[in-house]
C-alpha cells in the first residue's frame, strides 16, 4: 500500500511537468493532458509498484462556462496493493458540440458501459470504443441530459414521453 503522495511522486518522476496535482482532504487527483491519457493509464496499470488493475468508475463533468468545457474523471483501484488514485483530464468542446477523447477500454474492459453512459449524458465521443451505442436513454433522443445547460425537466420537443413519436 502506498500513500497518495507516494503515488503522485512516482507519477511526476515518470512524466515530469505534464502532470499537476490537486489535494482535498486525504485524496489526490492528477490532472493530465488528453493526449497523454493512454500512456499514463498504461503506466499506472503495469508499473509493479502501482498495479492499478481495477477501474472503479469513469465519470464526465461539465464545467460550463469554463473552457475547456468537459472533464473526465477516472477512479482507479489496485486489488494487489489496496490503494486508490484519481486521474482527471480536460476535454474541449469540438466544433460539432461534442467532446472527443480516447477510450480506455483497451486497458480496462469495465470502462465500456461507463463510457457509453458518459457519451450520451455529456456528448463526449470516445475514440476506438468497441461498442458506441446509447445505453440508458431512448435511442431516438439526441440530447445530453447531464450537461449544465440542459433543463432538469427536459423539453417537450427533445424528451417526449413517447420516444417513437416524432414531432
Amino acid at each position: 500500500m502506498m500513500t497518495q503522495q507516494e503515488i503522485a511522486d512516482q507519477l511526476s518522476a515518470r512524466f515530469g511537468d505534464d502532470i499537476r496535482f490537486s489535494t482535498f482532504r486525504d485524496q489526490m487527483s492528477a490532472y493530465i493532458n488528453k493526449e497523454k491519457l493512454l500512456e499514463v493509464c498504461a503506466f499506472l496499470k503495469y508499473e509493479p509498484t502501482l498495479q492499478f488493475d481495477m477501474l472503479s468508475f469513469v465519470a464526465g463533468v461539465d464545467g460550463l462556462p469554463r473552457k475547456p468545457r468537459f472533464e473526465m474523471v477516472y477512479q482507479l483501484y489496485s486489488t494487489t496493493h489496496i490503494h486508490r488514485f484519481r486521474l482527471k483530464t480536460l476535454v474541449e468542446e469540438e466544433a460539432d458540440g461534442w467532446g472527443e477523447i480516447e477510450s480506455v477500454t483497451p486497458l480496462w474492459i469495465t470502462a465500456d458501459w461507463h463510457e457509453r453512459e458518459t457519451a450520451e449524458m455529456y456528448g463526449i465521443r470516445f475514440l476506438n470504443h468497441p461498442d458506441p451505442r446509447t445505453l440508458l436513454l431512448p435511442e431516438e433522443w439526441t440530447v445530453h441530459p447531464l450537461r449544465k445547460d440542459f433543463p432538469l425537466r427536459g423539453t417537450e420537443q427533445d424528451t417526449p414521453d413517447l420516444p417513437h413519436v416524432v414531432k
Partner: protein
Amino acid sequence: MAIERHLNDTVVVTNLEWFVNWARKSSMWPLGFGLACCALEMIAAFVSRYDLSRFGMEVARPSPRHADLMIVSGTASKKMLPAVLRIYEQMTEPKWVIAMGACACSGGIYDNYAVVQGIDKYLPVDVYIPGCPPRPEALLDGILQLHAKVMKEKSLAANPKEKSIKAAV
C-alpha cells in the same frame, strides 16, 4: 324472495349484471409486473403475511393475455412507457388499472426529464394508491376499493368501461 324459499334455498335469484360483476371481482387476476421499488411491496402483499389470495387474486399472470388487472407498481420511465402501453393493449377486456405509488400517480420525487409524470396521462387509472412506497395494506385497500367499483359497473351496457368512468365521475 319467495321463490327461493319455495325451492328450499337451492337457488339464488339475482340480476345478471350483479352476478357478472361479482364473478369478475372475485377472480381478478393481476399481471405479474413490477417496475421499480413498489414492486417489492407488491410482492410482499402477494405472499404469506398479507396474502392476496384472500381476495381471489393470488395468481399473478406473467402473460398479459391472462390478466385482468394491471398494477403499475413504480416509476414509469419514458423509455419504458411504450412497453407499458403495449402490455396494456395486449390485456383482454375487461381490464382495470391501479396506479401504485407516488411515481405512478404523479411522477413522485422524480420530477425530471426521464420520468412520465403520472401514468394516468396514458392509461385509464381506476384506483390511485399514494405512498413511497405504499404499504401492502394500502395496496389491499386499493384493491378492495377497486372491487367496490367493479360491483357498480354497468357491465352489460353497450360500452361498459366508458359508462363506468362516467358513473364514477
